């Protein structure tokens, strides 16, 4: 990292026309040491953004600057090809070279930067050590597990000592257990990378947990920018409310009960033990004026802290005993005569609660 780039980071504002109907229009600045997530559904233009930043396609207007260097400037007809950008990319599905060993994959970048074979292999060895890949040096990518392949891809990208790190869906190729492990490890590796980092993902919880700032992208346009809380609690479009607006809590599971602070939540899975992440979609929380009949086991009384209207729906915030967002129709607001401060009963079915094992010690395990 030069001192210039550590001050400037990434500054990008550009458009790419992929078809007559679809144009990506993206503006973002990422200071060094900060992680931004580009969160959006499939077809939103995320892959196009990766390709443009990496130099695999040219922008149609605007410019991309990294560490004070101009990577692409449509106005000045300047275009730096990918091999000169120093943008490290962890590709979706990793795209490791199948004919090369793990060590050769990681040494590929240093070798391309006119480094001799010996120093390049030493550089590779260094990164294998940092990412606990030493034992796999001679393996071929086809012989790696998903989590191992992801670490090789990360090592390969970092070994060129890039000025920008791009991670395109780095966890989506992994099974659920490995994903939780890898996410923890990734957090630590990202923290050690001094430059700007851009995480591309369709998974809100991934964005919330790994990124400092989130850019939500829909149909080629950024529809909201903010940190995890701002996105979750104040979603600005129905898509964000649907996809990103889930309640995310962490607690300790034991025999079908998750302890979150002083509150216990009943879950359907009795096999999970230890730290877990919990997602509750705001629409799966039922709201009642009086204590409801029936057998919902997660039931408590609270008061409404805030009501926000969003199209034909409304989102309510409650803070006690759990900070939760609840979504109801606008009709329900009128029918139940809901207002800020109103006392209400909330119930959540155990089967509606998403639970995923979390691993505080994941880095040590992996």
């Amino acid at each position, binding site marked *: 990292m030069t001192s210039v780039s550590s001050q400037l980071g990434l500054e990008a504002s550009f458009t790419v026309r992929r078809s007559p109907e679809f144009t990506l229009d993206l503006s973002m600045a990422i200071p060094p040491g900060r992680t931004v997530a580009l969160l959006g559904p499939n077809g939103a233009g995320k892959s196009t953004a990766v390709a443009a930043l*990496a130099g695999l396609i040219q922008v149609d207007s605007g410019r991309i600057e990294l560490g004070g260097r101009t990577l692409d400037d449509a106005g000045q007809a300047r275009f730096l090809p990918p*091999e000169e950008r120093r943008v490290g990319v962890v590709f979706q599905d990793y795209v490791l070279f199948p004919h090369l060993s793990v060590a050769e994959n990681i040494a590929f970048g240093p070798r391309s930067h006119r480094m001799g074979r010996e120093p390049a292999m030493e550089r590779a060895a260094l990164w294998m050590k940092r990412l606990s890949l030493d034992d796999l040096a001679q393996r071929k990518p086809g012989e790696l597990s998903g989590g191992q392949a992801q670490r090789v891809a990360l090592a390969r990208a970092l070994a060129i000592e890039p000025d920008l790190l791009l991670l395109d869906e780095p966890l989506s190729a992994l099974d659920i257990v490995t994903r939780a492990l890898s996410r923890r490890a990734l957090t630590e590796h990202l923290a050690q990378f001094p430059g700007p980092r851009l995480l591309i993902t369709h998974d809100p919880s991934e964005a919330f947990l790994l990124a400092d700032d989130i850019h939500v992208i829909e149909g080629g346009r950024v529809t909201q920018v903010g940190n995890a809380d701002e996105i979750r609690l104040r979603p600005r479009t129905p898509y964000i409310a649907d996809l990103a607006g889930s309640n995310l809590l962490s607690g300790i599971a034991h025999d079908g009960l998750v302890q979150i602070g002083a509150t216990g939540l009943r879950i359907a899975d009795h096999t999970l033990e230890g730290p877990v992440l919990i997602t509750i979609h705001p629409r799966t929380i039922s709201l009642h004026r009086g204590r409801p009949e029936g057998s919902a086991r997660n039931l408590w009384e609270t008061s409404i802290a805030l009501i926000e209207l969003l199209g034909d729906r409304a989102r309510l915030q409650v803070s006690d005993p759990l900070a939760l967002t609840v979504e109801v129709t606008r009709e329900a607001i009128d029918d139940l005569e809901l207002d800020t401060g109103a006392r209400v009963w909330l119930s959540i079915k155990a089967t509606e609660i998403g639970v995923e094992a979390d691993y505080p010690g994941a880095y040590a395990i992996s």
Partner: protein
Amino acid sequence: MLALAIIGLSVFVIPLLGLLSRVPWGDLGELVSSDLVIDALRLSLLSSLAATAISTLLGVPLAWVMARTEFRGRSIVRALIMLPLVLPPVVGGAALLFALGRRGLLGEPLNQATGLVLPYSAWGVVLATTFVAMPFLVITVEGALRNLDPRFEGAASTLGAGRWSVMRRVTLPMIGPSLLAGLVLTWARAFGEFGATITFAGNLQGKTQTLPLAVFVALESNRDAAVAISLVMVVISLAVLIALRDRWWRAW
């Protein structure tokens, strides 16, 4: 099913048996070591290898462009590349003559500028064989490139590899088996080339007479020699095909 398969196989085997039944085993050593055969064998091997080398050098970039870029008139270009597969080689040879002969469209200015005469020369043999054989390489490699995820090349370039480096370190190794299959097909077609060669390069012993041409001549004058030369070709071709069979089948 099996009966038909056996009949199908016999289509390949029976002519071979016919050839073997006429081999003059007693005089074989003498026949195949004659100047005529040695000259033709050397020319055939050198020209087919040269044609394979040129086809690779030019055919791989052509295949890359066909597989990786979009342009108008691609289907016409594809048809032009395939044409030598369909065209009678004699027609190809005649076309080469009109283009590159001493009085040809390009041949005349080329001759005036450099004194180079392609027809009826060893380079003429190479050119004629390349014309006929290169499509096999282009088609095989293009197919392989289409099946190769372009993201591998993209990943290599983000890691700092320039276009030729990507080709050498990623593209070619990854399509290796198909490339080898294409090389073998191209070489085999070049080795057996007859029509375009005799039309464009003639049939001069020691200069442009390849093994197939020598067989053709010998059939008229010395049948034993024709059989002996044919046997040499069968043995060489079978040896190459069998030696490469494993990689060959895997690629296909």
